[in-house]
């Protein structure tokens, strides 16, 4: 028997969050004129004590805050597992420790940045904050990091005979120290002035970068607060562009669905002229239905797709398509019931997520 995965709680911090409010109504749009989109939110003390916060890096603050507030949203006290995905982990602390090591020629190093540098720091700190001894896993797999954690949530529900309240999230922070390296690697666009809302118009290499934390509470039991159901997800490490559509059809077929059953697609276009071709087949094949994208508003990061998922989940619940996120002009003809997300980064770590209205 196939067990369901209901999404019963959400919290999301992104460059679209304001200084005071993590949540936003998709109508008010934050705009940026540089390719680095940071989270401006400052309201962590609503949930985190100042003494604890002093030692927390931005990833840890964003992660602990959204984990705690997703649990509140789901009205769940104790998670049965804590699953995190992060592409870069606690990059800032890791960079600082490395730079000190190099500058001080391996002498007189303080351990404080090292101990916060492991990729499971957010998972561990969420456990400490919640005093949770539950199963605690962290995945780091490029742009499939969050999806790997989400896959573990699904595997847990499918393989374990117990009730689950799974806290699953994606977290990545911008490290000031290595922005230069990302520019050098042409991950960041080189245009000196750049409007994020026109991201797809530049036709140049690279994208704009972002950061954020997005947590979900997932259970096999539907609740009064259920936003949507996670039907299934699929990962492929490497693909040619012409394989994207056949793989999409095969994934839908595994779930006894056809292309015509999908009401909305959410795509991970990031404006990188070398790689947005991966999204073309789906833009073409799904041209009769509404299409949505989001990286122009929150920037690229290895866990940006977790923002995409909360966007899809909120659209399913509200049945409202926010204007600034639309990739085409097709209006929904009926209730949006099934949403398909597809993402990849530089031709690697492709993911598909299938969500359903509850």
């Amino acid at each position: 028997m196939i067990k369901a995965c209901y999404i019963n709680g959400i919290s999301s911090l992104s460059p679209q969050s304001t200084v005071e409010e993590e949540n936003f109504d998709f109508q008010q749009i934050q705009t940026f004129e540089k390719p680095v989109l940071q989270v401006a939110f400052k309201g962590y003390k609503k949930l985190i004590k100042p003494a604890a916060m002093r030692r927390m890096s931005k990833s840890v603050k964003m992660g602990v805050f959204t984990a705690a507030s997703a649990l509140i949203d789901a009205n769940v006290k104790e998670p049965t597992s804590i699953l995190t995905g992060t592409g870069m982990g606690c990059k800032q602390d890791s960079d600082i420790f490395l730079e000190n090591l190099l500058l001080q020629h391996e002498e007189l190093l303080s351990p404080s940045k090292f101990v916060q540098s492991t990729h499971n720091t957010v998972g561990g700190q969420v456990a400490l904050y919640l005093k949770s001894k539950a199963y605690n896993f962290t995945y780091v797999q490029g742009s499939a990091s969050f999806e790997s954690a989400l896959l573990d949530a699904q595997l847990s529900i499918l393989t374990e005979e117990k009730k689950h309240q799974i806290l699953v999230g994606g977290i990545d922070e911008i490290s000031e120290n290595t922005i230069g390296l990302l520019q050098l690697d042409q991950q960041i666009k080189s245009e000196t002035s750049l409007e994020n809302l026109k991201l797809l118009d530049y036709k140049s290499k690279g994208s704009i970068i972002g950061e954020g934390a997005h947590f979900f509470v997932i259970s096999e039991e539907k609740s009064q607060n259920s936003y949507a159901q996670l039907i299934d997800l699929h990962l492929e490490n490497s693909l040619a562009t012409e394989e994207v559509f056949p793989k999409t059809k095969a994934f839908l077929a595994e779930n006894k669905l056809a292309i015509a059953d999908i009401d909305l697609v959410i795509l991970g276009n990031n404006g990188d002229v070398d790689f947005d071709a991966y999204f073309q087949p789906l833009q073409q094949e799904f041209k009769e239905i509404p299409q949505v994208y989001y990286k122009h508003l929150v920037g690229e990061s290895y866990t940006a797709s977790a923002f995409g998922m909360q966007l899809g989940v909120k659209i399913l619940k509200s049945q409202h398509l926010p204007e600034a996120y639309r990739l085409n002009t097709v209006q929904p003809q009926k209730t949006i019931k099934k949403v398909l997300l597809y993402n990849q980064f530089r031709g690697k770590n492709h993911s598909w997520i299938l969500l359903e209205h509850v």
Partner: protein
Amino acid sequence: MIQRIAITGMGIVSAIGNNVQENLLALAQQKSGIGQLELLDTIHQNFPCGEIKLTNTHLVDALKVKQDEAFTRAALLGVKAAEEALQQAQISSTNKIAFVNGTSVGGMDYTEKLYQDFSKNPHTTKYIEAQHPGFTSDTIAHHLAITGLVTTVSTACSSGANALITGAKLLKAGKAETVLAGGTDCLSKFTLNGFHSLKILSEKLCQPFDEHRSGLNLGEGAAYLVLETEKKAKAQNKTILGYLDGYGNANDAFHQTASSATGEGSFLAMQAALNSAKINAEEVSYTNAHGTATENNDLSEGIAIQRIFEENLPKISSTKAFTGHTLAAAGAIEAVFSLLAIQEQKIWPNLNFKAQMPELNFSPETEIVPKKIEKVLSNSFGFGGNCSSLLFSAV
């Protein structure tokens, strides 16, 4: 019907050998691989390490790696161990297998070498992406022609054990038919200095569970297991090396790097592993402990072991004094050692042990002990309070 998870292949490279046979020989001869650093460029030459004496250049040639690709040392070690495991499991076509890797710092060796020079040497920019551990897994997958499900667990020193847990879950859920799972980590200045800054490296050969233990020795290595459902392995007439019958993970939720005095996380992980294998503690013949030889770990783990087994303590040893602490690879390397214990029906010794810890009522085995071994419990713990335990069974 939930399937039993069969192990049909294993591969390893560590300071005590470049393949399973060499590792087995060193274990049987009680020969440690820990000694003076020769390859890692660091000022801290006073700390003995379990270094693999194969240069990257040698590995690139031996593994026939394409020169234009960005192979980190962890990827090179990973490919070496993975190829051995796949060969033993007779996997000729890799396009349908899933790969679950465990690594902590991934490509940190290249990052620390090139960090200040990326802008000066354009041919090095291909290593910029190596800053994230997934890159190392991608490179291994690409070399092995694995294109489907590839993921990486990074829970510090329990990563390798946790990768095996994820692999088992993928099979049980029917999300994969064959899984290559394990871990890889190389020595780096980053980790050596990190552990040094925490003052938990020993200048002597490490002495797990000894009253006078003075810290850990770092190591490097990689190990992978091929996991398949018992049904599939039998249908294909494959030799089954053992079963991964149980696993557990729990969080100590005590401190970012230190373990609690009661070993609560380790206790819960071992308990969960026994429960998921549906066995009682007294059925365990041997426990391959995490046993890093730090003051804190061995006390916390020792107490947790006493709490789990009470009057029925199994034979216990840590093999860290053979290989050093290989971080994300440790859980996978020790999974191989656990399977070798089952294969040889021998307990591997806990080298360098002299005096029992006054806080504990047991001493680890110091000699090779021939014994009927049916069930082995293998522990791996990491920063972030991460505690894992795996239960392997004989065929």
